[in-house]
């Protein structure tokens, strides 16, 4: 009976739960799904992380390559994030070039990197005007069950924290770079931005960490990114119904709490890897 109700009247089905201040999967409105993290599982990448938020799964792999810095920014390296939503992760995505959603997600991630200053691109410069690192951060969704932006940001941050770059020296005679694989050092992470996404139901009810179905039925979506100092890095609200200032404030305070939870989780996982070694 419940299954039939769910298929026939999905919106009513959700409403009946929200009336009781809970959700079909048993969460309360302001509860995130269980988040698990696996760091450094891909040995071919210079840094990697796999994040699961509920059943949403996202993997991020970072590959570093050498390039010439851009003429206008001779002292800076590059960070190139790309989000891919392959047909593997959900039946709604088709093979071929990335769709609108993937493009928007890539741009969002790029904006978060830029505005939060998670990494100082000057750290990526090896020799001013001549050589710098390019960090290709490729984020792939393996299971799409809503709230992919949160998962992407966590995956990116954890992968960056795991990235080790080899030491590079430029030979003064031949001016060719020399890479010392044995000497690798961690990237310096300046900030720890974490995203928290919200959905607005029926113009008024605010829920946290929406699943795919909740995203589809909601009237507006909102993503807030904050760092460890409680600074706002990004507020992303693509259209939808309007939201009162009060509600937004509520979201921001929930996001700062989430930031602390995730940073603790990342630290814990990194520590457990170190002790395992």
């Amino acid at each position, binding site marked *: 009976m419940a299954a039939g109700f769910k298929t026939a009247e999905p919106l009513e089905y959700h409403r009946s739960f929200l009336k009781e201040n809970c959700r079909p999967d048993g969460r309360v409105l302001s509860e995130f799904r269980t988040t698990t993290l696996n760091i450094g599982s*891909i040995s*071919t990448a210079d840094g990697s992380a796999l994040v699961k938020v509920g059943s949403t799964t996202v993997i991020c792999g970072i590959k570093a*390559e050498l390039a010439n810095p851009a003429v206008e920014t001779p002292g800076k390296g590059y960070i190139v994030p*790309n989000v891919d939503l392959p047909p*593997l992760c959900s*039946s709604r995505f088709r093979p071929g070039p990335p769709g609108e959603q993937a493009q928007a997600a890539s741009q969002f991630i790029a904006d978060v990197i830029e505005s939060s200053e998670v990494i100082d691109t000057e750290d990526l410069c090896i020799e001013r005007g001549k050589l710098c690192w*390019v960090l290709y951060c490729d984020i792939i969704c*393996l299971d799409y069950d809503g709230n992919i932006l949160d998962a992407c940001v966590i995956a990116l941050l954890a992968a960056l924290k795991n990235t080790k770059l080899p030491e590079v020296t430029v030979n003064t005679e031949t001016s060719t770079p020399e*890479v010392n694989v044995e000497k690798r050092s961690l990237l310096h992470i300046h900030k720890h931005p974490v995203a928290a996404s919200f959905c607005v139901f029926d113009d008024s009810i605010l829920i946290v960490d929406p699943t795919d179905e909740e995203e589809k039925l909601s009237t507006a979506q909102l993503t807030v990114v904050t760092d460890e100092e409680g600074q706002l890095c990004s507020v992303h609200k693509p259209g939808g119904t309007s939201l009162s200032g009060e509600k937004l404030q509520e979201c921001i305070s929930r996001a700062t709490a989430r930031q602390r939870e995730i940073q603790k989780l990342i630290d814990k996982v990194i520590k457990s890897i170190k002790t395992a070694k």
Partner: protein
Amino acid sequence: MPTDTKRLRGPDVSKSPSLYFSKPPATVASHGPRADGRQRDQVDIRPIFVRCGLVSQAKGSAYIEAGNTKLMCCAYGPRETERKDETDMKCGRLITDMRFAPFSCPERTSWIQGTQDRDLSLMLQESLQPAICLHKYPRSQIEVNVMVLENNGSVLAHAITCASLALADAGIEMYDLVLGCSMRQDGASYVVDPSYIEESSCSSDRENQGCLTVAFLPSLNQISGLQSDGEMTEATLTTGVRTCIEGCYKLYPVIQQALASTVRKAAPPPSES
């Protein structure tokens, strides 16, 4: 080279740091034990880890890990076919797509699918098709997507195994499972389930070396896919095929067990009370 306008692009040229390594890369010895401690000239496959049904959105899915080779496969369908021009609508169509994550290989690969990906997709399709009862799915298509997360050799062989598991998990009717195994012949000796370095190492000008991948239906005793390159004598090829079949039989109980445990989880046996 087509420019990619739908993705964020970095600088026009960037080079892999491996081109500038101060030390030459380690070469693989063509005798003695293998780098990972496995035996040469024996059907010594890497222990594998398999799980079914990990992806909530897919009809069926499987994840396989053999040494450092990690790949994931999702199966979708049957759903209405997209190509209406096909004259043969009595049979369903199998669509395969195999892709490498950009960070899966020692060198970063482009997002844009190369000919290698498309060739592997085709091999995957030809290897799986004989095992699926396509006549039971008229006017529909079944999609198989493989994502290679980390490539440490024998990707095609493991993709075949993983894809057949995902199809079984999706409840697609099949005659048999398809298992894949590959080997590399190097002069007089061979290695089964080669790693990435073993696969790409091209030692001296020796004759009789090459790679071979076999897809095998274990309970029907049929070969559904076969591919080799390099240079081999007929005798080597024949023993190679036999070796790979043996490798597949070693894999069989593990795969069976994984499937059985998935089914048990989905529908627990009625408690005897």
